[in-house]
């Protein structure tokens, strides 16, 4: 059964036809049921390149005109349509498709239905389904394919509000929409927001105090710089990228999965890259081609883990339909690559030309061919000399093993003639070993040893001992012995112990060749050069080769060759073919280029999203026709150009965004603004944001004083009660994602993710109320507060500072003191102290989970 993964037919009609809306369903029917069948079964002989019987079926007009037998169809009358007769095989002279089996009954009835309903057909002949049929000039006029322009920030009426260029872009829109920005955030709000934004952790009460007391003009800039310099910055921002990279350490299925136990090296590489403020263009290039870029040892070892973006890609279960599974893996690579870096859904073109964007099917296979020209590999991490020695040693071992195997095999082959001859010597009674050896072209010394052996042939082969036995039985026994010896030879050319002794005894007397090669092998295997190096999950080049287009996505139906090259819409009408190996480096250069209109835009939009909870382009991984248009196109361009001009520096981008007035707005509600723009598209306030699961869990541990701030290293088990490491270090599974991560909207790592969905359900609150994690953390938090302050009044203040970065109000103090003084009705039933209960309330509350 053919299988097509992508659904676009339905929506397509709306955009590609200019028919009245009520006909849209008929066109949709054509698109989903008729056009694909025509493309696959008919157009080869009745299309642009070939028009058998002068019939073409690639446009509405051509179908109506028909060929030598007349019109192919009569719209509204399937019964009288020639096409139906042909595909029904009603007329033995007119059976179509001619060389293939009859179309399935349901397809035939689809055609009848289509014709009876009037044969809606949007194909006007200008956009042939055969060629790429794209008006490239027009296609490139789409906003996201235009180079981002450095726009002068607009003039605004309220000149006092903007602090930066960003603000002028935002305010200009607000003024058009007649919205007024709300008040600025308080310093407490600001430092809490900034600290979570940049590090995913709450500010320490002491850090809040320093900021409150700092009345200098650049007080907030100092906070930003301090946070950007913190190693926790990388832990926060690399995790965002890992969502896009669908980072995980295993595969989803059960059988034959080898866990990627070194996956953490890629995670740590990403964390370090952010901490080092690695330019984004380099960040891209290394993930695609670190092995081709870095030749010097230290840098190479440092950056090879970058290849984990694809080295950790999905590997599907391959048994019966391996070709399909391999094709699905390519889909994962192309999808992650193009949505992740370019905001383009190139995978939609796996089975057919993209329905909405100027991406012909061949472009998909041009990219896929790059991934078939390399393979996922465990790459050793060591200096090049050491890796070379390791590889040479491994090669030597392999060669010796192969030699040993050949030798063993050929010697074993000689067993039967020698054993039979030895028996003959005994049976002939003359025992003229030399004569028999000469007659049978055997070695006399070996034969002599064989004669002795045959005399005492082991149990199971007694027949060889008997001189009276029939020769054929002896031959059978000798062959059996040979077979036994042969099957005992393993991959490394070693025989099992008994058979090895047998051959040694018969053929080599004392100076066994086997013993010799064994000794050499053992020495090699134990040598320092053979000691394995740590590995990282990366890519290795294979023989580069272009793919052929899979017609309708079917690996068994091959179309034109797709040269390895970049996308036509971005690289021009005749994109240069990639010639360096697989072409990964050339691909990386094409993506990480200032001339690429998408790369910088897509990334600044992602960064904006994480600072505001809402991106400028609402579909961060789709900048195509079906994606959202930017709310602030000029601002997006301004940010993209500035990002590139600033050397693709993330830290400079964060700084520019966070120093703006718009970032520093409060999250306060304003009724007038809200009624007009409830979604805050125009940014009249900052958005109140819920902490993602990582920050939320880390913040609980931080408040409790339990957070283990160790950086990097192998993956940790989030379910272990004593795991106090940051959540970014937890194992991420495609097979069985940790329950807490899943519950709090962590994305499924089988597919690239552009944003966290946000759900609020009672199961999450059960975790707050009852989970051992929250309760143990609350206990630690209570113990900390009790230790750090002397009276309940002071403790309450301390607890609020730790949890929320602010003092408790008088009302709050009163409520909590009253609670602390309360008496339990049934004290024996309760195993949490009043302070522990308070601590649980504080970390379980809304204020803890949401950031203003």
């Amino acid at each position, binding site marked *: *059964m053919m299988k097509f993964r992508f659904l676009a037919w339905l929506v397509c009609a709306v955009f590609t036809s200019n028919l009245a809306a009520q006909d849209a369903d008929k066109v949709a029917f054509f698109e989903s049921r008729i056009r694909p069948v025509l493309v696959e079964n008919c157009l080869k002989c009745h299309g642009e390149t070939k028009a058998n019987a002068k019939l073409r079926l690639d446009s509405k007009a051509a179908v109506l005109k028909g060929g030598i037998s007349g019109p192919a169809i009569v719209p509204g009358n399937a019964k009288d349509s020639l096409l139906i007769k042909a595909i029904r095989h009603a007329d033995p002279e007119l059976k179509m498709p001619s060389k293939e089996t009859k179309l399935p009954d349901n397809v035939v009835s689809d055609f009848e239905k289509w014709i009876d309903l009037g044969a809606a057909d949007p194909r006007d002949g200008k956009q042939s389904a055969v060629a790429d049929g794209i008006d490239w000039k027009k296609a490139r006029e789409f906003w996201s394919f235009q180079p981002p322009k450095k726009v002068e920030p607009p003039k605004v009426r309220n000149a006092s509000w903007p602090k930066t260029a960003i603000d002028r872009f935002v305010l200009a829109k607000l003024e058009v929409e007649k919205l007024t920005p709300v008040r600025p955030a308080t310093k407490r709000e600001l430092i809490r927001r900034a600290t979570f934004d940049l590090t995913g952790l709450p500010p320490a009460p002491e850090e809040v105090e320093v900021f409150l007391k700092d009345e200098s003009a650049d007080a907030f800039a100092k906070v930003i710089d301090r946070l950007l310099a913190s190693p926790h910055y990388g832990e926060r921002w690399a995790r965002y990228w890992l969502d896009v990279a669908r980072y995980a350490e295993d595969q989803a299925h059960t059988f034959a999965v080898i866990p990627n136990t070194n996956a953490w090296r890629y995670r740590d590489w990403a964390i370090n890259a952010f901490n080092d403020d690695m330019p984004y263009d380099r960040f891209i290039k290394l993930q695609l081609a670190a092995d081709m870029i870095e030749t010097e040892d230290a840098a190479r070892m440092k950056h090879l883990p970058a290849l984990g973006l694809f080295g950790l890609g999905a590997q599907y279960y391959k048994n019966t339909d391996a070709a399909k599974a391999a094709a699905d893996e390519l889909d994962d690579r192309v999808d992650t690559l193009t949505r992740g870096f370019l905001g383009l859904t190139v995978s939609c073109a796996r089975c057919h030309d993209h329905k909405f964007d100027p991406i012909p099917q061949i472009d998909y296979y041009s990219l896929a061919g790059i991934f078939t020209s390399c393979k996922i590999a465990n790459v050793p991490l060591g200096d090049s000399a050491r890796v070379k020695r390791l590889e040479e040693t491994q090669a030597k071992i392999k060669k010796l093993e192969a030699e040993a195997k050949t030798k063993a095999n050929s010697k074993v082959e000689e067993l039967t003639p020698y054993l039979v001859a030895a028996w003959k010597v005994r049976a002939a009674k003359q025992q003229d070993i030399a004569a028999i050896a000469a007659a049978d072209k055997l070695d006399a010394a070996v034969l002599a040893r064989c004669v002795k052996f045959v005399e005492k042939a082991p149990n199971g082969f007694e027949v060889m001992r008997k001189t009276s036995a029939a020769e054929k039985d002896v031959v059978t026994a000798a062959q059996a012995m040979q077979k036994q010896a042969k099957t005992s030879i393993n991959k490394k050319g070693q025989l099992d112990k008994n058979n090895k002794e047998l051959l040694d005894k018969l053929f080599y007397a004392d100076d066994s060749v086997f013993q010799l090669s064994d000794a050499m092998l053992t020495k090699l295997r134990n040598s320092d050069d053979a000691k394995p190096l740590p590995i990282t999950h990366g890519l290795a080049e294979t023989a580069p080769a272009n793919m052929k287009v899979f017609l309708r996505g079917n690996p068994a139906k091959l179309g034109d060759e797709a040269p390895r090259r970049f996308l036509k819409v971005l690289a021009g009408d005749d994109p240069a073919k990639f010639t360096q190996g697989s072409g990964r480096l050339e691909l990386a250069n094409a993506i990480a280029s200032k001339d690429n209109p998408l790369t910088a835009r897509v990334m600044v939009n992602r960064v904006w999203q994480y600072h505001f909870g809402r991106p400028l382009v609402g579909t961060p991984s789709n900048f195509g026709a079906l994606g959202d248009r930017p709310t602030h196109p000029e601002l997006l361009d301004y940010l993209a150009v500035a990002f590139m001009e600033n050397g693709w520096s993330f830290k400079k981008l964060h700084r520019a965004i966070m120093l703006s007035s718009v970032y520093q707005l409060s999250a306060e509600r304003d009724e007038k603004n809200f009624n007009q723009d409830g979604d805050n598209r125009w940014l009249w306030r900052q958005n109140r944001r819920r902490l993602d699961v990582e920050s939320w869990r880390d913040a609980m541990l931080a408040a409790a004083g339990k957070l283990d701030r160790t950086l990097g290293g192998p993956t940790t088990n989030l379910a272990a009660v004593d795991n106090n490491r940051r959540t970014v270090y937890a194992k991420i599974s495609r097979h069985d994602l940790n329950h807490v991560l899943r519950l709090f*909207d962590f994305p499924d790592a089988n597919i690239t993710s552009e944003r966290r969905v946000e759900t609020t359900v009672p199961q999450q609150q*059960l975790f707050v*109320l009852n989970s051992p994690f929250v309760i143990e953390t609350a206990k630690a938090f209570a113990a900390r507060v009790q230790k750090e302050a002397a009276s309940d009044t002071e403790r309450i203040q301390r607890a609020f500072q730790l949890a929320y970065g602010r003092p408790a109000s008088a009302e709050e103090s009163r409520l909590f003191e009253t609670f602390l003084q309360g008496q339990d009705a049934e004290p024996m039933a*309760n195993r949490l102290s009043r302070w522990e209960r308070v601590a649980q309330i504080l970390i379980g509350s809304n204020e803890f989970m949401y950031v203003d």
Partner: protein
Amino acid sequence: MLTRRDFLTRTATGFGLVGLAHLLNDQQLLATPQAGAPANPLAPRAPHFAAKAKRIIHVFMNGGPSQVDTFDPKPSLTRYAGQNPPGSSRGTERRTGGLMPSPFRFNPSGHSGLPVSEIFPRIAQCADDLCVIRSMHTNVPNHEPSLLMMTCGDMQPVRPSMGSWLVYGLGTENQNLPGFVTMCPGFPVVGPALWSNSFLPGIYQGAHINNSNMDPRRVLQNLSNTYLSQGAQREQMDLMRRLNEMHLAQRGSDNPLEARIQSMEMAFRMQFEAQEVFDLNRETAATRDLYGRGQFNDACLVARRLVERGVRAVQIYTGSGQPWDDHANIANHRVNARTVDQPVAALLKDLKNRGLLEDTLVLWGGEFGRTPTSEGATGRDHNSHGFSVWLAGGGVKGGMAWGASDEFGFSAQEGRMHVHDLHATILHLMGIDHERLTYRYSGRDFRLTDVSGTVNHNLFA
């Protein structure tokens, strides 16, 4: 205001009809983390058209039961025993031998006379409720891709499961319980991807219940508090609520904050109400005897209690691993049948007695079938070319067999139904047009049935 996305959703799914997608709270489901109204994503929602079934129970015979030993009798296997007449064999995972007759007798059952294997004496008593499909087929004869196909409609682990789609589309009737519950003692092969939400929000994932220990306090994660009495916890909750309300009051109206306050209260109630549903001691001795005792029996009884309380989708695995995978000896099907026969029959009877069967759909079957030819001396290999499943209740015709396999039961021949067709048909019974239940995931509209699926109206009562 009609947003661009609304427009797309309506035009994309509508074609003059009102699409489901925009009935769902668009902002919530498409997860714009904004101040707009966050409707409860689990709240019940109207189907596309009148639903015949309001809920579904999938009793999953994981491992792949043999059709010719259960619901698709083939006398020719006896006639040609040991032989390989033309058309009797097609490629499967392993090499198989000649045709092997079923070791089991088939009995005409019920008024309809539907033939049922002797290994299901009690299910046979429900024959007049069964709608057997003898013409199922799937793509490959391997467990993993076929399990995924049956549960998620794709051979790779990259799509949401049917239960997740149903709750996404229809919500669920009981807010104190998960909308989609899956029961397996441990994991089946593949594991949690079989009830995955994939790109749908995480709350649509099936809640996995390990029914090897149906302790009501522990079946759902974090369901009960072992530290505080109910009174002490309520006192604590009251202070938390007070704190949250003061926080909210300072900020004016804010939907996500309000939603979480409500959700916290719901969680408090859920601790007690959700425990109740798993407490089988609340059932009468007669009912418990009807189902019998055992893991699978308990799961079936819990399934009835769940759907009775409005849970949308329940899935019960025969056991962990792949219990029906009888490569070595097909006679072992008798043991598996003994596990499921009584409780499945009890479930049908019990649902019927309570008036629930008419709008509860029960699906029985595996991920594929088995070969009519022998593997080794007495086993059968996987078979994707043809197999049988049955439906009951929920608007299907009882006492009927749809479609037919070939003379030997190797491949589906008449009225062929692919798994996509089964899914389309099930969704239709649940009031959903399978082509209109879509989710926009990064620029594409996905659905359970991919680009396939035909509703089989012949099965409907």
